[in-house]
């Protein structure tokens, strides 16, 4: 059922879930450990190939340098923007107290 689950442990999944601020149940942890293991198995298949002369694919679209001119356009009306927020004060978004400095 979990052929190569050792590629990723249940603890790894719990850690990744915490980084993404996802609260998973015990059942979900088991299930996702299996599923992510299968994804990594697939990646291992690709890794087994010799791709020495294949340039890395940065993006599935064969495009680069998609740019726009540096010309300003008015944005959204502040009252509309703040009206969408659960709480606002003094022209700014009001958020719960933050613990610690920005990373």
């Amino acid at each position: 059922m979990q052929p190569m689950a050792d590629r990723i442990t249940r603890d790894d999944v719990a850690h990744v879930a915490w980084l993404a601020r996802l609260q998973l149940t015990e059942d979900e942890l088991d299930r996702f450990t299996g599923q992510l293991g299968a994804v990594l198995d697939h990646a291992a298949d690709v890794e087994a190939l010799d791709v020495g002369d294949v340039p890395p694919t940065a993006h599935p679209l064969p495009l680069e340098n998609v740019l726009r001119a540096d010309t300003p356009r008015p944005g959204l009306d502040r009252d509309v923007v703040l009206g969408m927020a659960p709480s606002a004060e003094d022209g700014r978004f009001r958020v719960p107290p933050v613990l610690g400095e920005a990373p």
Partner: protein
Amino acid sequence: MSATATGWETVVGLEVHCELATATKLFCACPNAFGAEPNTNVCPVCLGLPGSLPVLNERAVELAMRIGQALHCTVKPSIFHRKNYFYPDMPKDYQISQYDEPINVDGYLELPDGTRVGIERAHLEEDTGKTTHVGGGGRIHEATYSLVDYNRAGVPLVEIVAAPDIRSADAARAYVAELRAILVAIGASDARMEEGSLRVDANVSVRRPGEPFGTRCEVKNLNSLRSLGRAIEFEAQRQITLLERGEAVVQQTRHWDESDGRTHTLRSKEEAYDYRYFPEPDLVPVAPPGEWQDQVRALLPPLPADRRAHLAAVTGSTPAGVALVVERGLDGLVLAAVAAGADPERALTHAEHNLSMEGADRLDPAAFARLVAMEVAGELTATQAKAVLVDMVETGDPPDDIARARGFEAMGSDALTAAVDEAIAADPDAWASYCGGNEKAKGALVGRVMKATRGQADGKAVTALLEERRAAAPGPA
């Protein structure tokens, strides 16, 4: 500093963030403007609203390239990553940045004294919003809530990462000052530390000279060159004290507090963030073609280091000797005055000592050259020339008119000789003493001449005349 005095070497690596002088943000068309009313420059992209997509600003790429070129970097094909973290200053819950493939790599910056600091990379990323903590006296941990302004979210930044080549607080300050001068010269940023458009983080460690690098601490919240220098000196000494006590330096991020002059623990390595970087799927690679790179390079103005070298060559000084004049932007004035016939050394001296005031760079070079000529010809003393110069900057009037209006008439040599002879006659004791070899006695005689001529005599000419008279006087019996 004490760190070297006690046999320790300070090692500093600097990370500088500068806001680019674009008209719009990095990934949307909102105005990039400092000081606007909160949340008036926002749109679905920089607010991270569902369904919005980023589109890269061409001008930001151009300015990033310009910075790379000015720092002698290689411009490379690059991609963007998402740096994921949860903090209300970024409404998307990630910052778009360049990670393992930045646009500029492997350059250097040359300081006025000729030493080079390696530049590891200079990459593009977006700035974050501004949070204000309310309650608890503005202290984060005691705040009851926070207010967020997203005007700054998405403003283009270039982060310039230097190699750990800096060895003192003074050199760190010199590096940031030079980098700021370059950024301003090439029009990439207004680079104002006090407005936050230039922000500096310092990685500080200490070691015994010749040994491997020690454990480093990153110091944040450095809002001025003064803070930068003080923080590095404090942090190096803190680490030296630990090591000399036999304790270890713990790798951590520390916060500089300007009011108590100390650094404080912000977070340790164990608490370091795992940003889960992954390629930004909404943006394609940016790989400036060689042709575009050449166009940008062709528009690069002379850099401060080139300007120092040129001015030093023209005036017979050294790059370090002309650094202040170039920093004030007066090199163009001096060069134009020299081209108009001014004595290079005198012109440089005035630019360095007498032209620190506002508007000095708008002085007419021909008029400046004329003033220098009047001084060299002995029509004005050094003190008078300085006074005329101040008036020239203020009024724009020609130096001849100002000198005449101020009564700085050229002293004829006959009048000067008469004044010197009167001084000798009026103070025979000083004269005898001077003739007896007491050089100090000369001061009293010069002083009399100056008083009699109301300061219009040229001190050097008076001295020369006194020496002439002494040589001609009969020697002591």
